[in-house]
């Protein structure tokens, strides 16, 4: 039913999605906050850049990454200067690719959430003497909670289903870069339909249950639209 290699691929996918989501939440929260609050004239340039992975084919992103990570590319050069080695065909390389690829799925819901909190609650808190940091943590964050949940789920799910970027920079190494989508593709291409069916159905069920749980939770959260 499930071969050892397929289980390893699923675990790798979960690890990749989890780590990517964590990194994106840490990087995306300040970025989304700034985008929601900034009055800078050229803010739209940054917004367009954040949205870019939505429209770019993953193969384009993957190809640029392959060039950038290679020994001639900027990232490759930096890594060699630091005494490291090329990031292509490594798990770290997949994390970098996934962070870029899933960026808009985390930043945009957060930005919308922060924008919908509005200025009023923050101003009220300010007049009551709360510091900017205090205002952010005790007012903005709790009010934006549904946005965080959406961002987390979308970031995680999008990375779990990622295919094109990994195909371009992963090198299909079992246990290291062979994620679940690549394993399925491999089986389909090799006409091993039965194995492909098993993991594809498993992934479908898992993804659905994940989304179901989240939307169910989301209904009960304060601040959620019912």
């Amino acid at each position, binding site marked *: 039913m499930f071969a050892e290699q397929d289980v390893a691929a699923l675990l790798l996918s979960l690890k990749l999605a989890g780590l990517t989501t964590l990194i994106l939440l840490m990087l995306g929260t300040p970025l989304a906050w700034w985008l929601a609050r900034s009055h800078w004239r050229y803010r739209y340039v940054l917004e367009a850049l954040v949205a870019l992975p939505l429209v770019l084919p993953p193969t384009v992103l993957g190809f640029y990454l392959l060039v950038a*990570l290679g020994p001639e*590319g900027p990232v490759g050069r930096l890594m060699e200067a630091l005494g490291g080695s090329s990031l*292509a*065909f490594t798990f770290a390389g997949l994390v970098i690719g996934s962070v870029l690829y899933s960026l808009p799925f985390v930043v945009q819901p957060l930005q919308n959430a922060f924008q919908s909190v509005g200025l009023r609650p923050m101003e009220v808190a300010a007049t009551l003497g709360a510091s900017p940091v205090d205002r952010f943590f005790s007012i903005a964050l709790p009010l934006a909670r549904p946005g965080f949940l959406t961002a987390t789920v979308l970031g995680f799910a999008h990375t779990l289903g990622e295919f094109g970027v990994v195909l371009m*920079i992963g*090198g299909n190494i079992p246990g290291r870069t062979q994620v679940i989508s690549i394993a399925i593709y*491999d089986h389909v*291409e*090799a006409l091993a339909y039965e194995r492909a069916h098993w993991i594809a159905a498993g992934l479908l069920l898992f993804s659905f249950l994940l989304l179901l749980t989240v939307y169910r939770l989301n209904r009960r959260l304060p601040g959620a639209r019912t």
Partner: protein
Amino acid sequence: MSRLLLMMSLLIGHIPASWAGEVYIAVASNFAETARQLALQFEKKTGQKVRLSFGSTGKQYAQIRHGAPFQAWFAADARRPMLLEKEGRMVSGSRFTYARGRLVLWSPTPGLVDDGEKILRQGSFRHLAVANPRLAPYGLAARQALESLGLWQSLQDRLVRGENIGQTFQFVKTGNAELGLVAASQVLRDGMPVQGSYWLLPADLHEPIEQQAVLLKNQVHAREFLEFVAGEAGRAIILANGYEVP
């Protein structure tokens, strides 16, 4: 209602008409560059345009089985053209070997690959790119060659697999893998490397990579193109591109 049917039948009747005289041919990735040259020469000679569509042999086989509108197919192996023949999805008797592929160990760095076998045995590299043996004929040949050398097991943790020979070449070309087992046709022009250094693997290390072509629809221009490829001028072009011709 009947008017609608009439309209529909007119439209449907027009589709093949718009394709008349157009030649659509499916070509395996490794043969892409050579096929472009062949199509160019064929057009010069006959004035007939040939449209080429590149992809992996496995994918194209599936597409042809599901009715893709190609009139001829240049595959990367003999296995799948034979399957088509068994299924009766091609013009019978049109299957022939148009090229024999050779495998090279290649690096974009000049002078790096001198004694290829020694380099593989020493294993002083981090990544060796091969095509996926499950999917690509050149990958299967790479696996057989490494098994013949007794290195398949020991090199496992250094193999990176491209999903086809095109991607495998890309891994090496961008420097992400130092070495790769790629098609001679990707590296050689008129017997000289386009870039870097290479080792032509002895043909007895793997089963021959017989690349076969078939006529899918008995269309006159497609048939002429196949005849051109099998003829003197066609064979010369194929030979110059790093293949052997039968």
